[in-house]
């Protein structure tokens, strides 16, 4: 992830359309989410009921897939006082890996063609094309990015400000492992625990390249011995010049962020109904006992805190609980990260600046920049990671069977054989390729023994059959019968 494999044209983006192969491709979708999040319910309801309901997801495209992009804010525990929650709400985002989503959708489309006239196993029942919906799932060997962005705003007191910058902590990391590095930074307006980065003082931020009228950014690769569980740091000097001399509010404001990204084991699925394929979606693979325990532990803690239950971790499509999930941390390099924030020539500014100004709107409060930066940063990093391997494509030669008049059909019964060998590839060529298993299910009416109730019903009916046949055998062997008398009318 040093950026060397990224096309050079990815350092520039168009305003309305963009190439699909760049890490920042479709950044406009993040813009759509921010716009929707601003006003998802009528203003009157928002005021009256104190509601703010952002959309659950927006959709990104791949080459032939539609992927669900999810954001969520979570209440974060204060690692210095576990009885409290932080005043900031970090943002987590995830989306499906583009190349895998494309492969899954392609598989689903081929399945629809192959299975059209195939029957259920052993020929029992209707053909499979007679179904309500078909679902295709990859549940093993699949990972997708989960990105946590924690941002706070702070101040620069002019060119003599030699205070080192301090990055906010990842609140979901087990800081019992590193208690000494955490502290409340003296004189910081952030008000949350942070870790100082001695290599960069605040005055140096004033010399970042770019116009002071726009946000000026800097990506920082943070040392892992000090910043465990941090993929990269990010700073944006805000396009403001406060002359207010109130303590802590003089000079420039900046937003400083901790980005933690990782590959999380997940399952991905897509569905099709009458050959219309829907967007892919994903769920966290909660097979690890530790993840499940952390999830339950967080729920129990939230209940004891008197929180509303919906604030607890209940969404299984998003999880973040270091070091358990996501289990594979990603170290992001500056050279790769710069492609997440390309220049938009039409507006003579960068993507980050455009998104910040849209989401913050007319507000000049620095804290809103920090809140928005969390969404934007988490979204850009997740989007970039999800596009890795973009030049990979679905591979495999399907099994076919001859049809009338020299035509060739996909052999649907071979797909139903459960031997997983419907597609074949060259063994030597594919030795480094990613291999996945796609499981297909259809929804329809069937007679089967899945579940408890059919088994119980079968048990009762078989008991009855045994009793009745015993009676027949007894009657046949003994030959005894007790004759029921006629009912007659006497005169």
């Amino acid at each position, binding site marked *: 992830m040093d950026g060397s494999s990224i096309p050079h044209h990815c350092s520039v983006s168009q305003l309305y359309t963009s190439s699909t192969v760049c890490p920042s491709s479709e950044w406009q979708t993040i813009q759509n989410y921010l716009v929707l999040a601003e006003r998802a319910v009528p203003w009157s309801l928002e005021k009256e009921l104190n509601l703010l309901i952002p959309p659950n997801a927006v959709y990104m495209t791949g080459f032939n897939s539609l992927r669900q992009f999810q954001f969520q804010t979570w209440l974060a525990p204060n690692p210095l006082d576990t009885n409290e929650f932080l005043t900031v709400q970090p943002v987590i985002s995830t989306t499906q890996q583009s190349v895998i989503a494309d492969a899954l959708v392609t598989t689903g489309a081929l399945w629809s063609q192959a299975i059209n006239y195939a029957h259920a196993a052993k020929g029992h*029942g209707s053909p499979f094309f007679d179904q309500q919906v078909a679902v295709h799932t990859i549940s093993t060997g699949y990972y997708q990015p989960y990105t946590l962005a924690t941002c706070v705003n702070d101040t620069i007191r002019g060119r003599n400000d030699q205070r080192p910058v301090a990055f906010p902590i990842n609140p979901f990391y087990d800081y019992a492992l590193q208690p000494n590095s955490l502290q409340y930074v003296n004189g910081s307006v952030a008000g949350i625990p942070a870790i100082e980065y001695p290599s960069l003082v605040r005055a140096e931020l004033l010399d970042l390249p770019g116009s002071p009228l726009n946000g000026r950014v800097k990506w920082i690769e943070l040392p892992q011995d000090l910043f465990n569980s941090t993929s990269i740091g990010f700073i944006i000097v805000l396009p403001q010049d406060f002359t207010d001399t109130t303590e802590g509010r003089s000079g420039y404001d900046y937003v400083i962020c901790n980005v933690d990204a990782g590959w999380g084991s997940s399952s991905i699925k897509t569905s099709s109904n009458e050959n219309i394929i829907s967007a892919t979606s994903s769920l966290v693979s909660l097979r690890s006992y530790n993840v499940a325990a952390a999830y339950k532990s967080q729920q129990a803690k939230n209940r004891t805190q008197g929180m509303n239950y919906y604030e607890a971790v209940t969404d299984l499509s998003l999880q973040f609980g270091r070091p358990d999930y996501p289990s594979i941390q990603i170290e992001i390099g500056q050279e790769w990260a710069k492609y997440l924030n390309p220049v938009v020539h039409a507006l003579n500014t960068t993507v980050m600046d455009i998104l910040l100004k849209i989401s913050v709107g007319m507000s000049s409060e620095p804290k809103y920049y920090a809140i928005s930066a969390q969404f934007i940063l988490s979204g850009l990093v997740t989007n970039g990671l999800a596009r890795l391997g973009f030049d990979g494509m679905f591979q495999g030669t399907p099994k076919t069977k001859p049809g009338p008049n020299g035509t060739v059909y996909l052999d649907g019964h071979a797909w139903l054989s459960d031997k997983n060998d419907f597609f074949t590839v060259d063994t030597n060529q594919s030795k480094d390729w*990613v291999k996945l298993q*796609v499981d297909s299910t259809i929804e*329809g009416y069937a007679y089967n023994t899945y579940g408890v109730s059919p088994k119980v019903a079968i048990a009762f009916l078989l008991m009855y059959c045994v009793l*009745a046949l015993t009676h027949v055998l007894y009657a*046949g062997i003994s030959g005894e*019968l007790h004759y029921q008398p006629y009912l007659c009318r006497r005169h």
Partner: protein
Amino acid sequence: MRFWSKLKDNTTTTLRALGLNIIRSLNPQNLIGKKSEERVKIAIRHSRTTAVLRALIHVIPVGVSLWEVVLNWNTYYVGSFKYNQIYYQFGAKAHEITIQASLATIVFSYIRHEMAIGQGLPFGALFSGLQINQISYLWSMELWGSIGSKSLTIRRKLAMLAVIVVCFVLAAAAGPSSAILLIPRLDYWPAGSAHVWVNASADDIWPQR
């Protein structure tokens, strides 16, 4: 003549076993009235043919039960639509009625055996077969009064209790069981799996640094 007599006798037995004795009564010769005399009744027959014919009442309910079990055991994919629910419900109810008639026959068969050649039964047990569709009989005074009777040995009491409890429980469970197996269930049906490949390595798609 003997053949026709035997055929007539077996037909009578079959109709009575299936509860269709009214068909026989349509023949005026079979009615007992002013101008005909009541025939001598046979209390006990010792004939395997007659006994098996009397057991024909089990054919339909056992046959349908086995068909339902085999259908579900072997699995059968119906498709995206099913018939109106009412057809399945009425079918299950009809099956339940036949099972209850069959179980009542078993209970009455036991009662008649005990009354005719056994030790006899308390009065409260005589009507158990008539209440086969009422599970409350299991905790009624009639049953427990019979169990508490001093005229039966422990072994006979246990045998009577076992037959009645098993038959009544099966009679109560037959309807829901038949409905569960007869109504196709909307569920996800496995439809194959396949290995697919992407021409990129794991490090290309999921690099760690």
